[in-house]
């Protein structure tokens, strides 16, 4: 449990860094680190399949897409970056305070130790995620295929050359 707490604190630090970093590239790197730490947590909760997907997609593919988007858009001079940094720090300086207040509130709630009623699974519940994904949730697969098609069109749009 101590290890979990350490990882959760690191996860939060990486997330706060993602939000507070003035440069977008630093933000994206923070996001990738957040995903990597989240993967370790998912592994520790005995969900290796979701962990592998999270690592390859969350810490690998999505930051690459973000970097491509930033590379296709941003052109900042040094003065603009400095101005943005000052503005950014002013806007996001309240975030640690907000998170600290929230943490105190949730911890106070957990002190009450509210009884959590969660439906217990039936005895014959399927334990293999592959069987659940392929045999029990057909509509999810269909939805994913349609979404990936939409994503392919998105990639075409993202890397389309400007005419003329």
């Amino acid at each position: 449990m101590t290890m979990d707490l350490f990882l959760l604190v690191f996860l939060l630090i990486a997330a706060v860094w993602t939000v507070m970093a003035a440069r977008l590239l630093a933000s994206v790197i923070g996001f990738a680190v957040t995903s990597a730490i989240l993967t370790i947590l998912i592994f520790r909760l005995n969900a290796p399949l979701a962990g592998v997907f999270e690592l390859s997609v969350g810490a690998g593919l999505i930051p690459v897409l973000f970097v491509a988007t930033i590379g296709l858009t941003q052109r900042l001079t040094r003065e603009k970056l400095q101005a943005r940094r000052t503005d950014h720090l002013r806007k996001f300086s309240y975030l640690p305070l907000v998170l600290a207040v929230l943490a105190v509130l949730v911890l106070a709630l957990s002190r009450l130790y509210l009884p959590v009623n969660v439906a217990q699974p039936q005895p014959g519940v399927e334990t293999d995620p592959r069987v659940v994904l392929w045999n029990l949730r057909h509509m999810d697969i269909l939805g994913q295929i349609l979404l990936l098609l939409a994503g392919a069109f998105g990639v075409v749009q993202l890397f389309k050359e400007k005419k003329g």
Partner: protein
Amino acid sequence: MNDTAIQVLWTYSPFVVMLFVAGLYCMLGTYNLIRVLIGAELCNKAVTLLIILAGHACGNLALAQSIVVTLLAIEVVLVVVAGGVIVCLYRHHGSLDVRNLRNLKG
């Protein structure tokens, strides 16, 4: 639900809430479109962790994992399509500031 699962739930849940609020703050506190997208992704991470946590607490991790796989596919498509829209908007307006997007203002 046994005591260990409740302990895990209460250890993780404050961090899940804080992660979600950090993402929400990122989305609300900026005018930059790419940063809005990063905020949305952070919220997504919090939801992913919550789904796995719920699966762990209920003892039905298989279903939780299959839902997370679907969620990750949706996440990628969200980033790709939103990225394409952002690049298009940048080419049209020369800026990523949402305050400049006034073409549809009635």
